[in-house]
């Protein structure tokens, strides 16, 4: 092949993922810029506006971080599943169920004091979210049902269930018939911590820490890591593989459920069908870009949240359609996937060449 052969490296390339990401980012920005140029928009100015709207000001950074919070939580969970090679793409539905759980608590005891209400909301969100993930996990382990398909269908069903409630019995009588629940009482609202950043960010930090400790320093965590790398070996070692699958799915569901809870309580202050805007899918992109590492997930959540926020600036100034986000996400992910090849392989000049 043109005098080159492909050789496998003994060790992955040092700092490889960083350079790969940079290369992939440059490539995708290049292709996106080309697309813009074709439509007659100034590409460099567009890139500046994207940056400007997402990171360049205090308020922009605040917007981006706020947006990153639900993406981060969903992505943490997705990453744990992916580590075990469980392809859970149902974070979107689990997020919806979490929002339903939290709202159910608020609607059934709106007058409870905050120290009763808040913990119960978190408990209900985690339980319903986890339930929505554990069912596909059980179907997979007991009935051999492919989890990609089941979690995907559960997304549709979960979101429609949310609509069913909000268009039906949960509708606020004072909302003039529009699909939204009552405004949550102050006791059920996650308040601001500094600036506009609410204390949901502490939940993120707590969840990330707990998860790191769990994966790195407990026996179960160790088993999850091993099972992911080699399911067959895990079974030989008598690890409870099925139980582990249920566990990671449960963790993912609970975390996605909390994302739904936080989005409902902190940013909307009520439940509306419009809270479902694709965080669960962005989470998959983030998890993979971060190569499933918890610290990197934080960085990439902020980056992709920034992309979503920044594109609005692009729309205002250059009338670039909203779908531009999807193009950039897809391109970055594809090129990173391709680029990861160089982490393990290198092109060598062939001796026979």
């Amino acid at each position: 092949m043109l005098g080159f052969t492909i050789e496998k490296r003994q060790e992955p390339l040092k700092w490889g993922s960083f350079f790969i990401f940079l290369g992939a980012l440059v490539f995708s920005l290049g292709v996106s810029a080309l697309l813009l140029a074709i439509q007659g928009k100034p590409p460099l100015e567009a890139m500046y506006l994207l940056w400007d709207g997402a990171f360049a000001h205090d308020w922009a950074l605040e917007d981006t971080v706020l947006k990153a919070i639900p993406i981060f939580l969903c992505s943490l969970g997705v990453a744990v599943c992916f580590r075990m090679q469980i392809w859970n793409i149902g974070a979107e539905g689990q997020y919806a169920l979490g929002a339903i759980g939290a709202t159910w608590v608020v609607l059934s005891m709106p007058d409870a004091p905050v120290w009763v209400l808040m913990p119960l909301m978190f408990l209900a969100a985690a339980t319903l979210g986890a339930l929505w993930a554990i069912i596909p996990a059980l179907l997979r382990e007991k009935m051999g049902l492919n989890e990609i398909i089941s979690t995907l269908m559960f997304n549709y069903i979960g979101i429609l269930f949310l609509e069913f409630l909000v268009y039906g019995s949960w509708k606020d009588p004072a909302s003039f018939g529009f699909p939204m629940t009552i405004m949550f009482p102050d006791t059920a609202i996650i308040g601001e911590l500094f600036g506009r950043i609410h204390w949901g960010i502490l939940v993120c930090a707590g969840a990330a820490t707990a998860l790191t400790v769990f994966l790195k320093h407990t026996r179960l965590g160790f088993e999850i890591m091993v099972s992911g790398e080699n399911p067959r070996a895990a079974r030989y070692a008598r690890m409870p593989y099925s139980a582990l699958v249920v566990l990671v799915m449960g963790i993912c569901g609970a975390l996605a459920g909390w994302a739904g809870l936080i989005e409902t309580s902190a940013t909307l202050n009520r439940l509306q069908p419009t809270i479902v805007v694709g965080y669960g899918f962005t989470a998959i992109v983030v998890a993979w870009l971060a190569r499933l590492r918890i610290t990197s997930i934080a960085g990439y959540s902020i980056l992709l949240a920034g992309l979503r926020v920044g594109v609005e600036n692009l729309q205002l100034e250059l009338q670039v359609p909203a779908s531009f986000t999807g193009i950039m996400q897809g391109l970055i992910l594809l090129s990173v996937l391709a680029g990861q090849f160089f982490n393990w392989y290198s092109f060598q000049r062939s001796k026979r060449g």
Partner: protein
Amino acid sequence: MGLELIIPILAATIQSGTPILYATLGEMLTERSGVLNLGVEGMMIFGAFFAFLVSYYTGNPWLAFICAGLLAGLFGLAHAVVCLVFQGNQVVSGLALTILGVGLADFLGTAYVGVSAPGFSPFDFPVLSAIPVLGEIFFKQDALVYVSFLLPFLFWFFMNRTRWGLALGAAGENPAACFAAGLNPVKLRWAGIYFGGVLCGLGGAYLSLAYTHLWTNNMTAGRGWIAVALVIFAFWRPGRAMFGAYLFGGIMAFQMRLQAVGATLPSSLLLMLPYALTIIVLLFSSARGKGRQAPAALGVNIEPGE
């Protein structure tokens, strides 16, 4: 419900099942070659858009149909580059392809929303449409439906009776043996991804050329994902794919008509039916048995070098 309502439901079943049938066969072809491509939704919407675009400018729906397939196949080759050349993860690459395809079609297609283009319309198939009941259900459709009737048979014949088809299947079952037999499994997988993408694109084209004569962003509305599910339901066999696609089309047609006759169930619950049914149907068919398994090397990349 009398016959006068059942016949239209069944006729509508065929029509709403057709785009799914094309896409299911496409994904099946790719998977039979050993590659999982979750980008079906992306390739479908890509096909839907280019079909509309070509028909809008040339006024020739057949040309549009073919172009849509060829271009969607090319788009799908991004998956081949990532997975076959660069050894990327097939699941994630497919997802990325879907995200990219939906975004790209939307980005390019905004200007064409709200105009209509020439397309296919139903006509009575000579002779056969005169058969009572069956004729009304199967043979008062458009040309692309008639094409889709033949596809499962062609698919079966290709996979089981031709040299190329058998080789393609070997790349999915046992790439090492395939290689030993003097075939190149990587090249075969390139072909599997390309022609699978072509069929997915044709499924998308059906939506913008025959189902309606309009284009909009997101018009595939999850049909690509249903197709991925149906491949598993069908045990990777074309005949069952046809059955699955029509089953699914039927439930979509049915829930709308349930609303139309005045059912007082909330619409959210009725709209859940197709998705819930997919899971139930898969549960009944997922018992592992002989001849029901996925191609043995499905989703496993062929490492370079050896």
